[in-house]
């Protein structure tokens, strides 16, 4: 049985706990065992914390990686930000022994050491590559005849040079994951465009971030999609909260929530009623 250290991050457990809950339930259905990565912190956020201090970012990320290593488990994330941050940090630490040694000096102050063995995985690619679409199809009890927009976000596939998950310009992974439950992923303009939230833009330049969001929403609307399916709680927040302000009403679901619906879980257990943009199924 596939077994992972479940890295919660910030936005899922503290703003969209329904995403956390659906991930737990969907993983159980698909035979993925999640062990809570206890005592973990923020990944830390790649576009803000790393931009303020790379030293802090890599050391705090190494602490999270070391917590998983101690449990003998690889990390599973449900957020592109956490995935991007921890994947990048692991890559740098695994490639650069001098950096690893420097970071371990800092970790020694708290009685920890990172040997450099933790792999960082994203929920969506674990299902696609390790579990397989056939198993997803078998678990579906309520096929969803929806037209949806697959929203990849940025740090799921990119930088593709180190991630090598799919074609970063014309990917299929999320579309295939969505279509496995019966929904149709609609083609649209600028499908790989950023939601606008990353890099500290949402916090310091909110109006600019919202322009990104509006352009995406216009393209999604034009495509005929009825739902937005994301793989990142931060994109999720940007679209869910942003639509209230921008006057759109396209429900936003994390892939785990879409799977929860298709696998017959109660909408109440998926936290859908807590979304700012109402979700009608």
């Amino acid at each position: 049985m596939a077994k992972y250290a479940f890295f919660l991050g910030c936005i899922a457990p503290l703003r969209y706990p329904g995403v956390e809950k659906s991930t737990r339930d969907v993983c159980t259905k698909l035979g993925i065992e999640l062990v809570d990565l206890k005592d973990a912190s923020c990944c830390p956020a790649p576009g803000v914390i790393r931009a303020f201090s790379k030293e802090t970012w890599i050391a705090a990320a190494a602490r999270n990686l070391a917590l998983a290593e101690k449990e003998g488990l690889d990390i599973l994330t449900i957020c592109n930000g956490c995935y991007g941050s921890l994947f990048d940090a692991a890559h740098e630490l695994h490639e650069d022994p001098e950096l690893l040694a420097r970071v371990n000096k800092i970790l020694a102050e708290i009685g920890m050491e990172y040997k450099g063995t933790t792999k960082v995985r994203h929920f969506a690619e674990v299902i696609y590559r390790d579990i397989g679409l056939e198993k997803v199809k078998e678990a579906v009890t309520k096929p969803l005849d929806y037209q949806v927009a697959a929203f990849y976000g940025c740090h799921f596939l990119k930088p593709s040079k180190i991630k090598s998950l799919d074609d970063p310009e014309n990917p299929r992974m999320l579309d295939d994951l969505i279509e496995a439950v019966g929904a149709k992923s609609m083609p649209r303009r600028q499908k790989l465009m950023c939601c606008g939230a990353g890099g500290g833009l949402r916090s310091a330049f909110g109006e600019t971030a919202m322009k990104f969001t509006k352009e995406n929403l216009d393209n999604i609307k034009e495509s005929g999609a009825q739902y937005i399916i994301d793989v990142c709680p931060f994109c999720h927040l940007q679209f869910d909260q942003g639509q209230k302000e921008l006057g759109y009403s396209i429900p936003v679901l994390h892939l785990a929530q879409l799977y929860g619906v298709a696998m017959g879980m109660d909408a109440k257990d998926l936290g859908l009623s807590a979304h700012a943009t109402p979700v009608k199924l």
Partner: protein
Amino acid sequence: MVTPNPEFTKEIESRGGGQVLMCFQCGTCTASCPSGKQTSFRTRKLMRMAQLGLKDDIVNSEELWQCTTCYSCVERCPREVPIVDIIIALRNIAVDNGHMYDEHKKVATALSKYGHTVSINDNVKAQRKDLGLPEVPPTVLANDKAKADLDKILKATGFDKIIG
């Protein structure tokens, strides 16, 4: 007149930014940039400024903070310039020189205070309880010793000085 400062590219590299001199100014980055479509941020121009070592202009610029780190430019750069790494290094240098937005300081303060970039509140606790999840997630929020460990890391890497 601009006086180039070739030392600056070395500073960028030492901060984890990689080789900015590889950029040959084709402009694919600017053409791919979703932020450049909405703002005055021009990726190619920033790379040129970095090559020339115009440190003061860079650290004082608002544009430095308008990149969302989406990596569209990095994916398409024909010279494989690590543009996002360079921007992150430039931001680190800007922060060292005292340039940080108040909103970003708030995010940094949240990390220091909670160990997360956002706080927990009663509404979320109630939602978590309704979902059958522990009210407080099993992270640093639930263990003072773990939070103290994180604090030590933040201190050892000078993060407390950034928040000020």
